[in-house]
């Protein structure tokens, strides 16, 4: 194949898309599919526009009790005593529980798919044991006839606290004299695997090194080193957490909940309640957003314990302040990053020191942060140190490309600064330095075919990049980002119905249209219409183990399982046709038009043979079970135009384009939707969103009024350019699309603000007070 520099590309409208939905096309390379790449109405759509879809809080059961969770008013305190007797005595109260009602837990690691937990810590996060570690930390729970009775009763629970000083900043928390949150935490040094011997807030230290870093910096033409800070932010899904549990007298526990991973909830509930996982059935309700934040358990084991104590099903719902106070978030950070280049603008060295908030218990996405910090470029010499540091904030959880958005702010704004200093166009710099197939990352991973270069090429060819800016105080910035994506375990079973349709069941909960993207892959293989597949997400007793809907894995891995199920159906139908025609199955072909043909001109369509299954050996069920390990990493490059109000410091995004290598877009509308939605979250993170804490460690903005996510009046149209560099690890080339679009926005907007004002922002959010402060400081 020609080198990328010689290949010919153009940007054109993506067929069937709205204005602004485009794609990068390479001359002579346009794969042809019948179903893949089309835009059918999603299968669960009608239920969702008519209000019939049932989400977590919509479950009703006979005898259902409502619960309320009492939460800590302190950021850091020792629990001296808890007296629940007055609450238990309230008429209408059926059960009151505390951590003492959970089985005791031991220090063992559990893998939740997008992060690792220590079961001992998760036990204490679900219901505090001897200490509370953040405001909103759950302390006790009540089940009663109504939520109002439960709430009134919970207020009668008497908790005596010994208040301790909180620590909120990672730089302070790692000092030797800082208050220590967990006396069982020791510094775990990776990848060497050494353990510290004194209690500390520094739970992990990752170190990666490649080449001769010091010599490379010494020889560099230009070295830029900068410090950055970001604040804690929340995933901000609109549906609060909810769980309903029934602990039946036969020992079986059923959990109805909205989650990204039913099997992950099953595992956690079984572990924390010390029951076999086969005794726990998790029924996934529709999920109202997750973004990584609906994987770990909060309410599920508590509802189960209340059910055991009361003999009744119990529902627990969080309100919005609970969600902000006690779930999510993704960490605030401090970062120091240094990049060196030669006289031609080629990167020669990189160095990063990254400090991420773990929150109350270890587990920030510091390791992915380390692996992403220089991932967009070919960096021949690099050194990365990353620290996971406990602070008195809620235990951090995955949030869309966890860790990568933080580090992109650092790397991508330094790259912009280097471009300016060396007089190189930011597009040209990235084309020259882009990570390509065969390049080795600082953490030692060598890239398979990737599309970083192509995303930059698409920027260069885009109308947006080529158009002039029109007004004063306007600026344009670009930034790139990387996310690994993931494969993992998925199972699909597909039954051929007598009318020629297929019923597909799967274990991947559907957050953003994956029922459609999975059904379309099965339909493509079988040669039938997407509408002739009926997909259903089923409970943990009804399908094989399936990993979380996270890591941008579902359309890739569960799609692979659907492809395998379709191929299984094809093989079985060939046998049935062979029986009908009295020939060998090997002589029967299954062509792309959903027709089976025999050696002597015999022919039968999918629909017709589907009606003959019971006469040729019984129903046909195709099965697909995969452990996918050939996921393809995704790169994105964004263009942001901003206008900065010099009087108020308000940053308005006036035009925005997301360019992303998706591998292959199965359902382009939902691919565009992921790109647009991820960018919107990144824009919110860039200019609005932050957890605002008082010195006492109390969160002051636990509402959607004060923690302001972007509204539709804040955002422009978000244009998209889909780049399709197929992933060789998937028959259609799927990479996964969900996560990387959140990564570039803060850096792209910071670079645009610089072009508009001459001021570099290195601290998120770039909110009006902060921008105005910098503008005024620059004026003096």
């Amino acid at each position, binding site marked *: 194949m020609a080198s990328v520099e010689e290949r010919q590309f153009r940007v054109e409208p993506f067929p069937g898309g*709205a204005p*602004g939905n485009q794609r990068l096309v390479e001359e002579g390379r346009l794969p042809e599919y019948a179903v893949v790449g089309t*835009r059918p*109405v*999603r299968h*669960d*759509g*009608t239920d*969702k*526009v*008519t*209000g019939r*879809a*049932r*989400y977590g*809080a919509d479950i*009703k059961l006979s005898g259902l009790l409502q619960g309320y969770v009492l939460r800590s008013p302190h950021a850091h305190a020792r629990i001296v005593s808890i007296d629940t007797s007055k609450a238990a005595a309230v008429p209408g109260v059926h059960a009151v529980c505390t951590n003492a009602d959970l089985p005791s837990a031991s220090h063992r690691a559990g893998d939740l798919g997008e992060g690792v937990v220590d079961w001992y810590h998760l036990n204490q996060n679900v219901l505090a044991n001897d200490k509370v570690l953040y405001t909103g930390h759950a302390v006790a729970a009540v089940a009663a006839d109504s939520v*109002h009775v439960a709430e009134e009763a919970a207020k009668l629970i008497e908790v005596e606290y010994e208040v301790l000083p909180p620590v909120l900043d990672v730089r302070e928390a790692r000092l030797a004299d800082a208050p220590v949150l967990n006396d069982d935490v020791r510094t775990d040094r990776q990848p060497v695997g050494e353990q510290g011997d004194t209690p500390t807030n520094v739970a992990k230290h990752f170190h990666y090194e490649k080449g001769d870093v010091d010599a490379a910096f010494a020889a560099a033409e230009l070295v830029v080193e900068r410090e950055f800070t970001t604040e804690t932010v929340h*995933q*901000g*899904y*609109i*549906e*609060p957490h909810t769980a309903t549990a029934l602990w039946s007298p036969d020992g079986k526990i059923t959990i109805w909940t909205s989650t990204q991973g039913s099997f992950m909830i099953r595992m956690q509930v079984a572990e924390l309640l010390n029951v076999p996982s086969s005794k726990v059935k998790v029924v996934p309700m*529709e*999920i*109202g*957003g*997750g*973004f990584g934040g609906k994987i770990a358990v909060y309410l599920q084991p508590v509802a189960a314990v209340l059910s055991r104590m009361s003999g009744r099903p119990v529902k627990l*719902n969080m*309100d*919005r302040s609970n969600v902000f106070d006690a779930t999510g978030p993704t960490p605030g950070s401090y970062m120091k990053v240094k990049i060196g280049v030669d006289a031609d603008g080629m990167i020669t060295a990189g160095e990063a020191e990254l400090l991420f908030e773990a929150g109350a218990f270890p587990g920030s996405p510091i390791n992915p942060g380390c692996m992403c910090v220089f991932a967009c470029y070919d960096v021949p010499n690099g050194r990365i140190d990353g620290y996971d540091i406990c602070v008195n904030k809620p235990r951090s959880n995955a949030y869309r490309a966890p860790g990568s958005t933080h580090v992109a702010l650092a790397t991508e704004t330094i790259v912009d600064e280097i471009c300016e200093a060396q007089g190189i166009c930011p597009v040209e710099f990235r084309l020259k330095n882009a990570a390509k197939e065969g390049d080795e990352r600082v953490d030692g991973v060598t890239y398979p075919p990737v599309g970083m270069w192509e995303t930059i090429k698409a920027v260069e060819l885009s109308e947006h990049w080529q158009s002039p800016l029109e007004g004063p105080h306007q600026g344009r910035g670009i930034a790139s980002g990387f996310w690994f994506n993931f494969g993992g375990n998925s199972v699909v079973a597909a039954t051929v119905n007598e009318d020629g349709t297929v019923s597909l069941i799967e274990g991947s909960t559907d*957050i*953003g*249209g994956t029922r459609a993207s999975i059904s379309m892959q099965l339909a493509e293989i079988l040669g039938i219409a997407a509408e002739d597949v009926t997909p259903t997400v089923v409970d943990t007793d009804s399908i094989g183990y399936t990993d979380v809907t996270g890591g941008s894995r579902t359309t890739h891995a569960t799609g692979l399982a659907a492809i395998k199920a379709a191929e299984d159906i094809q093989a079985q139908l060939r046998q049935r046709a062979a029986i009908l025609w009295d020939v060998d199955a090997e002589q029967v072909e299954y062509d792309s038009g959903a027709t089976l043909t025999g050696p002597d001109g015999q022919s039968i369509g999918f629909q017709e043979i589907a009606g003959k299954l019971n006469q040729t050996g019984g129903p046909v069920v195709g099965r697909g079970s995969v452990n996918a390990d050939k996921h393809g990493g995704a790169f994105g490059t964004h263009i942001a135009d901003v206008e900065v109000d010099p009087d108020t410091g308000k940053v308005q995004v006036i035009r925005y384009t997301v360019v992303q290598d998706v591998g292959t877009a199965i*359902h382009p*509308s*939902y691919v*565009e*939707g*992921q790109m*647009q*939605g*991820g*960018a*919107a*979250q990144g824009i919110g993170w860039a200019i609005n969103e932050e957890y605002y804490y008082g010195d006492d460690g109390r969160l002051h903005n636990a*509402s*959607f*009024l004060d923690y302001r*996510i*972007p*509204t*539709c*009046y*804040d*955002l422009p*149209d*978000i244009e998209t350019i889909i780049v399709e560099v197929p992933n060789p690890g998937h028959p259609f080339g799927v990479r996964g699309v969900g996560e990387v679009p959140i990564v570039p926005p803060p850096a792209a907007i910071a670079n645009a603000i610089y072009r508009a004002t001459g001021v570099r922002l290195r601290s998120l959010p770039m909110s009006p007070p902060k921008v105005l402060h910098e503008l005024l400081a620059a004026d003096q």
Partner: protein
Amino acid sequence: MAKKRIISTSINGDPVEFLAAPRQTLLEVLREDLDLIGTKEGCSNGNCGACTVILDGRPVDSCLVLAVEVEGSDVETIEGVAPTDGLHVIQDAFLDQAALQCGICTPGFIMSTKALLEENASPTEDEIRFHLAGNLCRCTGYDKIVRAVQQAAEGETN
């Protein structure tokens, strides 16, 4: 707790009587007592719009309306939008434009859109974005929602 009162109202065109305690919101009564679970709770303090219903022709956050306040009023919820023989033009437009991902905010957006188009049949994009700014969506970035409202407006004026 204060005694419950009998409230007479009209919901989706049908006369409805229910019992409500003074502390209960319209949202709670719709969901918990009348089984109209299509109206969603996202924040319960009027910031997200997931619980939007149309009260006497105006879009309101049902979490900010006490149930006892709807005596004698007309309430329209997502369950009343579709005609008996298919979907409303707004619902079709949301599906055509892929204007939803998780879908939890969708009933609220559809109710706000319905109220907008009843007041202004041909809104500009700026008017659409201004009118829908009380409804939060965290999945879509709003682009496809705005397209859907534009499609619905064109459908309604044709």
